[in-house]
């Protein structure tokens, strides 16, 4: 019987990544008209497999602080992985690489995935409760 900490499995981490991605994509949409702004996004697959490696006892791909004076880096929140810059399909003359349509689609897709993850967690909670009640 695995401990209750792991009751939600990978979904807990997935939800964290989706929440972070929501924020990044909102930032992209907010800066759709800002000159010189570069659109950013997360590599979900890399982040999740990084998490899986760390769960399995590995070090993952994020930088390790092996000295007290090392900076925490992006992975300081335990989620590892820097946001990556999107390669623009239609770069504009003011240096902005945000494509509103692409960002909107990504934002919607991300929110659907977030809701799917919440459904998984909900289901897990229901079955746990059922097991506890025993009815």
């Amino acid at each position, binding site marked *: 019987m695995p401990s209750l900490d792991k009751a939600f499995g990978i979904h807990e981490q997935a939800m964290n990544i989706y929440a972070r991605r*929501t924020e990044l994509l909102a930032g*992209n*949409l907010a*800066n759709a*008209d800002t000159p010189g702004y570069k659109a950013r996004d997360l590599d979900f697959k890399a982040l999740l497999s990084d998490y899986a490696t760390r769960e399995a006892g590995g070090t993952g791909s994020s930088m390790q602080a092996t000295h007290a004076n090392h900076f925490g880096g*992006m992975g*300081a929140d335990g989620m590892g992985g820097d946001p990556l810059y999107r390669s623009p399909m239609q770069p504009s003359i003011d240096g902005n690489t945000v494509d*509103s349509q692409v960002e909107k689609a990504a934002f*919607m897709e991300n929110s659907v995935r977030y809701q799917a993850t919440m459904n998984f967690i909900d289901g897990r909670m229901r079955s746990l409760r059922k097991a506890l009640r025993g009815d």
Partner: protein
Amino acid sequence: MSMFKVFDIAGSAMSAQSLRLNTTASNLANADSVSSSTNETYRARQPVFAAMLEEASGAQRAAGAGVQVKGIVESQAPLRQLYDPNHPMANEEGYIFMPNVNVVEEMANMISASRSYQANVEVVNTAKQLAMRTLSLGQS
């Protein structure tokens, strides 16, 4: 919970875009404000947007960035000078000065600003739905 930052980000964008709508309205309203000297003539105003600098603290660095309005600049394009000696505002040489507002450009600006505003309203709505749904996790 980082979902709450989405409201700040989208909110900053909404206020920046509404300021852009304000300057556009001002430019369109003054498109025909005639004057008798170059110094008194209205010049087209445009806001300058910049991404907000992110906090340097580790966990916050990866977060999305809001928008800030750096300032409002007046267009340096030449004013339109018309010869109209019968105009009440004409100067001694019979010239009047028209603002350098490009009405077509302003209309395009207005549509762009309102579309961007709508996109951010949508972001706020979606984020709200996600947050409400997260709050009700496990209550069903």
